[in-house]
C-alpha cells in the first residue's frame, strides 16, 4: 500500500491522476484474482480394482462423448472448467448402466480470434452386465 501511495504521489508530480492509478491497480488485482481456476474433477470409467464378474467382456461397444468450452479474451472461462465433467456425464449416459472401461482422453483447441475454444473428447468401451 505504501508503495502504491508513493507511486501515486510521484505519478501526480508528473501530472497524472492518482485516483486513476488506484482504479487501475484495483482492476489489475481483480483480473489476476479471476484469472485462475480449477476444473471440476471427473471420475473416468467404472470404479473397481478387481475383475467384475457380472460383466460380459465379449460384447463391448464403443461409446464417445465430447464437450467444449470457450476461453474469452484469455481469462474469462465459459464452460471451460466443467467440460471434463460434462463430457464424462454424456459418456455415462451413453453407457446406459454398462461397465465403462478403456477410457481415452483427447484434448483439442481452436483459435477463435477473441478467445480459444477448448474441447475434451472421451472415447471408451461399454460392456453389458450379465
Amino acid at each position: 500500500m505504501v508503495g502504491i501511495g508513493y507511486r501515486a504521489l510521484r505519478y501526480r508530480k508528473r501530472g497524472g491522476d492518482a485516483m486513476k492509478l488506484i482504479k487501475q491497480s484495483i482492476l489489475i488485482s481483480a483480473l489476476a484474482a479471476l484469472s485462475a481456476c480449477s476444473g471440476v474433477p471427473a471420475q473416468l470409467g467404472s470404479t473397481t480394482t478387481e475383475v467384475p464378474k457380472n460383466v460380459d467382456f465379449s460384447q463391448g461397444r464403443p461409446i464417445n462423448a465430447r464437450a467444449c468450452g470457450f476461453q474469452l479474451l484469455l481469462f474469462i472461462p465459459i464452460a471451460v472448467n466443467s467440460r471434463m465433467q460434462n463430457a464424462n456425464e454424456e459418456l455415462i449416459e451413453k453407457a446406459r448402466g454398462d461397465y465403462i472401461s478403456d477410457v481415452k482422453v483427447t484434448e483439442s483447441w481452436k483459435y477463435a480470434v477473441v478467445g480459444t475454444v477448448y474441447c475434451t473428447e472421451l472415447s471408451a468401451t461399454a460392456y453389458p452386465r450379465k
Partner: protein
Amino acid sequence: MKQSKVLRSGVTALSLLITACSSMPTNVTSTPNESSKSLGTTEGSACGSMLLLGTAYYFIPVGLNSRVETAYKRALEKKPGAKSLVNVTMQENWYWWVLGTARCVTVKGEAMQ
C-alpha cells in the same frame, strides 16, 4: 513487392497450421485382469501453455497438446512396475500469467501391476 506477398502468404499458412490442434488419444483407464495387483494410489501432473504472438492473441502451444499423456506417464512412473490405472480421476486447472495461459492436468488413480 512479390517477396513481401510470398512472406505474407507463408506467415498466414504457418498461422493456420498452429491455430488448431489436437492431442493424441491417451488411454487413462483399463480393465483390471485376474493377475493384476494394486500398487496403491498414484498421481501425475503436467502443464502446457498457450503463448503469445501479440498482446491480445495467444495461439502458440507449448506442451499443451501432450499434457494428458505426460500426466498419465508421470502417475505410472511414481509406482515402479505399474502398467495401468483404475479408479481414475482427472482434473484440469488453469492460470493466466500475462505472457500466456497455463493449463495443468492432474491424473489420480490406483496403479495396477
